[in-house]
Each structure stands twice: as structure tokens, then as C-alpha cells.
């Protein structure tokens, strides 16, 4: 009876915990330029090799290679670099302000900037974006003034959310960026509904949405995939696989035996796994998926392989659950650095220009911060009128809220 099979509960383990040697050998990588780029109308089933492989454009010598090279103008790449760098500088500055007690909470997108910036740049202004809370790069691309974002973080008198949302939960109707919930994955099937409406109205706009690999375990993911497939909705469904959902590694969301992109063909949805730290690859895959959607080819599930280089949020301490030096060993590098090296290799950029740009962006952020804090911070300066608490629950204020507003006014004297 020695070799009798037994059921045994399997508990996934990350390759390394604090004090261990970092090991990324579980990542299935392949060299840049080796994935074929099929016609955008290819069947969903035929995308399985794309969903299990890895689309990469930038090679180790910082050149763009292979069929997925989107051949974009250097000016576009420079703009992309600027947006990514701005995102990072903004994040770093806001992180510091949280440490100084000026804002209550912050979430950086460090290391994942290309996922938002490259995709937003490859889409059209009329396309609707349904982000998660680590997509601030979308706001940089679509041009929301930094002061507006900062005022939201400060919950001050110019807060777009009127003091009702945690920092980072922005929204921008005019810029076609949906309100960030703070609940996980809920935006995923909502984006599908938006795309269905675009198709019902006969418009050629597409929707795009982002969730983490961790929250792809939610039922919302499944509902979104099913609706997207059934109605062939023009939607880009992005899974940002940054390896970590707070302390839980991607194996706990189903990443041990399959890629996340491979779920796509299982649903009848095209799947593409892309190097999320490769600006050109994300740009090219977005173009492909958007064209597919606009031509009636339906949805695409895109897995961005990336790494959450910073803590989950300002309330998190990753040194308690992963090796401190893990990011240094991350095999897909840094998206800002890689695009910068590529532009330098093209002769369209230099370390000096980069340093100068970084200085300008830091100054821009500093100027915006000085302006934003004039409108108040969470603890000092002018404050939002607490009466605003009672507005926008419903379009018209119901009578019981009018009474409660009066009660609060009496309480406040």
C-alpha cells in the first residue's frame, strides 16, 4: 500500500519569504521579439500561445525587436517616458506627504507605471477607462491637473470627491475615467456593461479596465468574462499581475499552474500575456486588442507581468512577508529605466536630458503641492463644509436627510 494516492490539501507557498534568497524562476519568460503577432481577428482559441507565452518588444540591448514592435515615433516614446516619470515622482512626493501627516493614506504604482501609461496612450480619448487604485498614470496621460489630484488626496475644499473618499479614489467624467470604488474588481464587469452600451449605440469607443491578479479571484471577474464573451463586448480586460496582493503571492490567486491570461481562451476570450514593464509591448498589445474590439472581434484579456515595487499602501510593510531585496532581482526590470535606455539607444534621449526632465517634473509637483495645500489639508487650513456630507446621496435631498443636516448644524452650534 506504499504508493496509495491520498488527497492532501495544497497550500501554495511563495518562492521566498523574508531572509530567503529571492527566486523568480517560477516566471515563464521568453526573449523579446519571439512571439508572433496574429491578425486581430484571430479566434480566441488560437490566442492560447499568446496567453501562455510573453509578448516582449525591448530586448536586453534596449532595441525594439519582433513583430510586436509598434513602430511609434520617438516623440510618442518621449511623452510616455515623461508620463511614467511624472507618475513616479508624483507618487514619491505624495508618499512623503503621507509620512509627514499631511494626507491620511497613499498608494504608489512604483514599478507598474507602463501598465497604465502605455495603455492609455494607445487608446483614444473617447475610450472609457475603469481603473483600480494603482492606475494614476491614466490621469497623467489624460492630463488632469496635478493640483486636482492633490486636492483629492488632501480631502480639502477643492476635493473632487467633496471629502467622501479615501485618497487615490479619483474620478473624472470629462476625461472619461470612471470613479475608483476602493472595493476590488467591481469595475471589471461594469466596464463590460459600458462597452455593451457602446455597441448597442453603434459607437466605436471601447472600454478598458484593470484589476490585480489577486482580485481576479472575485466573482466579478467571472461575471465580467462571461458577459464580455457572450455579447462580444468591445472591452480590454487587464489583469495587472504584480506578484503580490498585500502579503499574498500570485499563487494564491491561481497563478501556480497556469498564466492569468490563459483564462481568456477558456472563456472564449482572446488572451495575451505581456511584459508589463515594457512600454512598447504594452502599447502594441493595447493597439492590437483595441483594434480587435473596434472591428467587432470582441474582448481581450491582457495579463501584464509586472512587480509591485513598493508597499501595497502606506499602511503596509512588505519586509514582513517578502525578501527586502526582491525587486532588485526582478527579471523584467524597471519600466522607466527600460524606456529611457531604449530612447538613448535610438539617439533620442540622454542621461542629461533625463535628469533635466526629472528636475522639471519635481518642480512641477512642488509648485502644484504649494497651490493644493492653499485650499486646505485634512488637518489645517480651510475645511469643506460638513453640510456636503448630506448631498449626492440621492439627486434630490430626501426629507430625513434635510432633518439630519439641521441636527448636525445644531450639534456644531
Amino acid at each position, binding site marked *: 500500500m506504499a504508493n496509495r494516492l491520498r488527497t492532501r490539501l495544497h497550500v501554495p507557498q511563495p518562492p521566498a519569504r523574508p531572509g530567503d534568497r529571492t527566486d523568480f524562476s517560477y516566471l515563464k519568460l521568453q526573449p523579446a521579439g519571439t512571439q508572433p503577432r496574429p491578425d486581430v481577428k484571430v479566434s480566441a482559441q488560437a490566442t492560447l500561445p499568446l496567453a501562455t507565452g510573453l509578448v516582449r518588444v525591448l530586448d536586453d540591448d534596449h532595441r525594439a525587436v519582433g513583430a510586436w514592435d509598434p513602430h511609434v515615433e520617438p516623440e510618442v516614446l518621449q511623452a510616455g517616458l515623461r508620463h511614467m516619470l511624472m507618475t513616479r515622482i508624483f507618487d514619491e512626493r505624495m508618499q512623503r506627504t503621507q509620512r509627514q501627516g499631511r494626507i491620511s493614506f497613499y498608494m504608489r504604482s512604483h514599478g507598474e507605471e507602463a501598465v497604465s501609461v502605455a495603455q492609455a496612450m494607445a487608446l483614444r480619448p473617447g475610450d*472609457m477607462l*475603469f481603473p483600480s487604485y494603482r492606475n494614476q498614470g491614466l490621469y497623467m496621460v489624460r492630463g488632469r491637473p496635478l493640483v486636482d489630484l492633490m486636492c483629492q488626496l488632501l480631502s480639502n475644499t477643492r476635493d*473632487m*470627491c*467633496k471629502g*467622501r*473618499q479615501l485618497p487615490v*479614489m479619483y*474620478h*473624472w*467624467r470629462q476625461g472619461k475615467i*470612471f*470613479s475608483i*470604488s476602493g*472595493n476590488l474588481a*467591481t469595475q*471589471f*464587469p*461594469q*466596464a*463590460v*456593461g*459600458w*462597452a*455593451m*452600451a*457602446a455597441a*448597442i*449605440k453603434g459607437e466605436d469607443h471601447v*472600454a478598458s479596465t484593470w484589476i490585480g491578479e489577486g482580485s481576479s479571484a472575485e*466573482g*466579478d471577474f*467571472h*461575471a*465580467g468574462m*462571461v*458577459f464580455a464573451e*457572450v455579447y462580444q463586448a468591445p472591452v480590454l480586460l487587464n489583469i495587472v499581475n504584480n506578484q503580490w496582493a498585500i502579503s499574498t503571492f500570485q499563487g494564491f490567486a491561481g497563478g501556480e499552474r497556469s498564466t492569468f491570461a490563459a483564462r481568456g481562451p477558456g472563456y472564449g476570450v482572446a488572451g495575451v500575456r505581456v511584459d508589463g514593464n515594457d512600454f512598447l509591448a504594452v502599447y502594441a498589445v493595447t493597439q492590437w486588442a483595441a483594434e480587435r474590439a473596434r472591428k467587432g472581434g470582441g474582448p481581450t484579456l491582457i495579463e501584464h507581468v509586472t512587480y509591485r515595487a513598493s508597499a501595497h499602501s502606506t499602511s503596509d510593510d512588505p519586509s514582513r512577508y517578502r525578501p527586502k531585496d526582491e525587486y532588485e532581482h526582478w527579471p523584467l526590470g524597471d519600466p522607466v529605466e527600460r524606456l529611457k535606455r531604449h530612447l538613448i539607444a535610438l539617439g533620442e534621449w540622454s542621461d542629461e536630458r533625463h535628469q533635466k526632465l526629472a528636475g522639471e517634473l519635481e518642480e512641477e509637483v512642488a509648485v502644484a503641492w504649494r497651490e493644493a495645500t492653499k485650499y486646505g489639508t485634512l488637518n489645517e487650513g480651510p475645511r469643506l463644509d460638513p453640510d456636503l456630507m448630506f*448631498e*449626492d*446621496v*440621492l*439627486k434630490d435631498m*430626501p*426629507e*430625513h436627510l434635510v432633518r439630519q443636516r439641521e441636527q448636525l448644524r445644531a450639534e456644531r452650534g
Partner: protein
Amino acid sequence: MARMNMIQALNSAMDVMLERDPGVVVLGEDVGYFGGVFRTTDGLQRKYGEHRVLDTPISELGIVAASIGMAVNGLRPVAEIQFADYIYPGYDQIVSELARLRYRSAGEFYAPVTIRTPCGGGIRGGQTHSQSPEAIFAHVCGVKVVMPSNPYDAKGLLIAAIEDDDPVIFLEPKRLYNGPFDGDPGKPAVPWSAHPRGEVPEGHYTVPISKAQIVRAGRDVTIIAYGTMVHVAEAAALSLGLDAEVIDVRTISPLDSETLCESVRRTGRCLIVHEATRFGGFGAEISATVQEQCFWHLQAPIGRVGGWDTPYPHAFEWEYFPGQKRVAMALEAIMSAG
């Protein structure tokens, strides 16, 4: 004026709105080709096409979420959840998303979604086809909750709900679909064609949301009810020979507390009747409101009648259902007090 049962009235409301507003879409399980398991959307897909009246996958989460996305993109979805008992997979999308979108985005985004769903018991549906979940939606800030008790109100309130820029949970007491029901399952069924509220205009009209209606004026006691229990309560009061004032709440939230309290201040006595379980039921909210606003006018403790605090049973339907006997006993207790 036409004679309609509640199903026809609801169908007519959607027909009117699909005709008037190209942004209105109807979606849900079995609502398209088949016309709904209760026939409420019968003929609508044939008339308006499969892009306006959509069959959906069996996913209440997906139905609600897709409706939110559609609404944000300028449509006015009317979603059907086949039974209120099945609404819970969509509950997070309702509570955390639909209800709070306007608030969290300071009015920039909102989703005018109407969620229709058949509720209530009395149809031998057991615990998966009989629930009355109004209280768990009444507790959510940012949605309106409506429950009509007759065809006229059903059509007018559904049109008002679809036109409303706020999300509305529209609960349809399925025992009333084909006729009024006074709680006695032994009696022959009465059709809506024999009831004055079965007279329904063919065209567009609205019944205002957030307005209760006094369906029977009286002096002895105020009975506050909604849905099926409006008819049960009225019959129970009549059986006792009481001159009861019967109020149909019609909109659970936001509640028209003024109409309720004005009546109780006149009668001095109050009974609240609903089908849902009593503990934490919406009757508790009404009771507290009446007590706060009418305390010095009350001649007896406020009474509450509801379903027992158990899951809805199959074999004991009529022992469970708050029928005329339970209402009458509560009325007798209230009338003999003070």
C-alpha cells in the same frame, strides 16, 4: 381606460418607456425571447429588438454590474432579477457600487438603473421563491425602494422609477400579479378586472415615488402596510367591523413619514403589517418613526405583524404567512389597550 392585471401593467410601463426613450433597455434572465418567467416582458423583444430587450447569462452580479456600466454610458437599464431571493449575488454591486456612485463621485457619475424583482410569498415557493428583502435595501443609503400593491400603482411607479435619475429597487409582490389577495388561500381567486385599481391608462403616467397613499380612510386605528399585506390588512379590519384607516406605504425608502404620522396622530392607534420577518424588519423603522413623532397621541402600544423569524417554509406556508387571523389578533390587542 383598460383593465390590466399587474403583469400587464408592468409590461405596459416598460413598453411605454421603450417607445419614448431610446436609452431604455430591458435586461435579465429569460426576459427576451421568452418574455420572462412571469411573462412580464412578453412581446417586448419582438417589438423593440434584441439590442433593447436582452436575455442575459444567469449572473445577478453581472446583470447589476452591466446595468451600472450601461447607465454610465447613457442608457437607462431596467434589469430584472428573476426572484428577489436570487438578488444576493448582485448585492455588493447594488450596495457598494450602484447606491454609492453618485455620492463617491460627488455627482459626476450616477447610474439610473431600475432593478425589478418579484418578491413575497403565498405561491408555495418555499424559501427560495418567497422572500421579502425590502429591509436590507432600505438600510442602504443611495437607492430608492418601491413596492406597489395594485396594477395602477405598479405601472405609474415603474415609469417613475425608470425616469428617476437615482437607482430604484422595484419589488413586485408576485402573489398580486394576477389579482388582489386578502390572505385566504381557500377562497376562489379574484381577478384584477374586478378591482378599481385594475383600471390602468394605456399611455404614459406616473405615480410619485416617496408618496404613501391612504387607501381607506378611517377613525379607529391606522394600519400601515405595503405590497400584498395592504389587501390582507384591509380585509382583517373589515372582518372585525373596525373603521380602520389603511395606508399603503408604496415607497419604502425614502419613506413618506408625514402621511403615516399625520394619520396616527388622528387615530391614536397604529398597526404595522408586512410579510417579511419581523426582527429587524422595516416595520421596526416605521414603528420607531411613529413613536418619535406621535408619542403623545398614542393610546396604545404600536403593534407589528410580520412573518415569523424563520426562513420561509414550504409545507407550513399558511401558518407562516401573516394572514387575516394574525392581523386581526394584533388589531384586537391594540383596540383593547388604553
